[in-house]
């Protein structure tokens, strides 16, 4: 089995050729939008909410993520945009991205003299980068070159019967073939952390899983009782999920049965083949940002059958503009069968008794290989909208 991708200079394999406009701070978001409006299809602003007033460790995380989005193999070339007074320097971000060997430009108001010069130069650079990207051709790669992120959302009890075991089946195939898979959402390990920890090849990695959940538990408790009872969500409960333990046990099914290789930090680059857990936010716009910065080429997103399955693009998140991480949607519940046309893979046959997990898994793997080879997902075919990506922060906001 193989897929068709673009070999990058650093050895990674891209599956899309996105010219990324990366604002060094949120103050540069507007310039990124102006450039994208003029440069047209294939040029995307990666808007985010990183302000001037975050404290140390949060700025470190933000820099890692802004750099990581530029280094993502789906970014064919990048323009980093800044004001000049951005706390995370546009030049530093650009230099880190350029280390991968891909074309990078940096434009700041301070250096160029004014806003209009940044925008007009940005349009010229973006059009040139787009033209150069059009000359690149795809070549075949085997499963060991896949970097797949897996996520579930809008979960109900059918998620644990449909999309999650199906995604887990695919994770097993990819990891056993030498590929890489990653999943995240530390709060959604609560109650299932002991089971994931036992899958770690190295006991020290198992301890990292337990420590990550203990830190999340502590942060929740430190915040007071109001946040208690936020999981499962009202939508989850309507779908039959009774407790965070039940939700977590169903959610980890999407990571398959292969050993856990390591735990990585939010936005950290995937260090090698295997299965990785990213210790990070369970807030979708933040977790998706972390996964895209890890170098994942695409993400599967499994749904139950509740109201979130009726969102056309993505539920309550920033996928509208995240052109560097194509998302393939899986539907689990026969109750939401009317939404099948908006999903890439329907797993409800498992619940209806007409298909097995392995049969749907095989279909999902084939669809993933096609999407990696350039077939647009249902979400990619929809008109894009722009939303602002959210940085995860652990420090105070003031």
């Amino acid at each position, binding site marked *: 089995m193989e897929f068709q991708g673009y070999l990058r200079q650093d050895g990674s394999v891209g599956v899309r050729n996105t010219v990324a406009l990366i604002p060094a701070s949120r103050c540069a978001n507007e310039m990124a939008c102006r450039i994208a409006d003029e440069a047209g299809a294939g040029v995307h602003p990666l808007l985010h909410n990183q302000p001037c007033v975050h404290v140390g460790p949060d700025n470190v995380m933000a820099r890692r993520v802004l750099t990581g989005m530029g280094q993502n193999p789906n970014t064919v070339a990048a323009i980093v945009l800044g004001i000049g007074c951005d706390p995370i320097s546009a030049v530093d971000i650009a230099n880190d991205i350029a280390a991968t060997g891909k074309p990078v430009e940096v434009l700041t108001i301070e250096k160029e003299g004014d806003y209009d010069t940044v925008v007009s130069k940005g349009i010229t650079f973006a059009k040139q980068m787009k033209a150069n990207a059009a000359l690149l051709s795809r070549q075949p790669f085997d499963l060991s070159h896949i970097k797949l992120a897996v996520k579930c959302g809008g979960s109900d009890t059918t998620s644990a019967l449909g999309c999650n075991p199906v995604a887990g089946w695919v994770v097993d195939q990819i990891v056993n073939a030498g590929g890489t898979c990653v999943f995240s959402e530390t709060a959604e390990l609560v109650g299932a952390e002991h089971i994931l920890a036992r899958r770690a090849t190295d006991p020290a990695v198992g301890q990292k899983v337990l420590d990550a959940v203990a830190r999340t538990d502590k942060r929740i408790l430190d915040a007071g009782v109001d946040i*208690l*009872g936020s999981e499962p969500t009202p939508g989850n409960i309507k779908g039959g999920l009774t407790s965070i333990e039940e939700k977590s*046990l169903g959610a980890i099914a999407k990571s398959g049965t292969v050993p856990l290789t390591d735990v990585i930090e939010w936005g950290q680059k995937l260090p090698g083949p295997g299965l990785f857990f990213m210790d990070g936010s369970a807030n979708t716009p933040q977790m998706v940002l972390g996964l895209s910065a890890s170098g994942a080429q695409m993400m599967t997103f499994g749904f*139950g059958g509740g109201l979130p399955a009726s969102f056309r693009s993505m539920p309550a998140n920033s996928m509208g503009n995240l052109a560097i991480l194509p998302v393939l949607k899986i539907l689990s519940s026969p109750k939401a069968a009317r939404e099948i046309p908006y999903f890439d893979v329907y797993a409800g046959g498992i619940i209806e*008794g007409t298909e097995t997990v392995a049969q749907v898994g095989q279909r999902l793997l084939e669809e993933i290989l096609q999407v990696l080879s350039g077939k647009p997902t249902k979400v990619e075919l929809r008109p894009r909208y722009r939303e602002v990506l959210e940085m995860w922060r652990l420090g105070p906001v003031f």
Partner: protein
Amino acid sequence: MKKAIMMDPRDNVATALAALEPGDEIEVISTKRETVQQVQSRDSLPLGHKIALTDLRQGDTVVKYGAKIGRASRDIAAGNYVHVHNVVSDRMPLTENMLAHM
């Protein structure tokens, strides 16, 4: 016959694969689709929600996927609907405010 699926042999609840009504005879199947047992439903519950396979006393552990998903907050009889009204999480108990939404 309507079906419910038991995710692990250690479980004391099963997930309904169809909406259930009181009096329905339910065939409980394993993940390998083998018939494990039968149970008569005592309540109405939607597809995907849980039904008790054995009698549980208040405080007993509720087991799904072979692992604990909470404790019975009141006595539960085999065939009863099992959800937030009779199960409480050990890790993040729901607040009264959340329960009021249900």
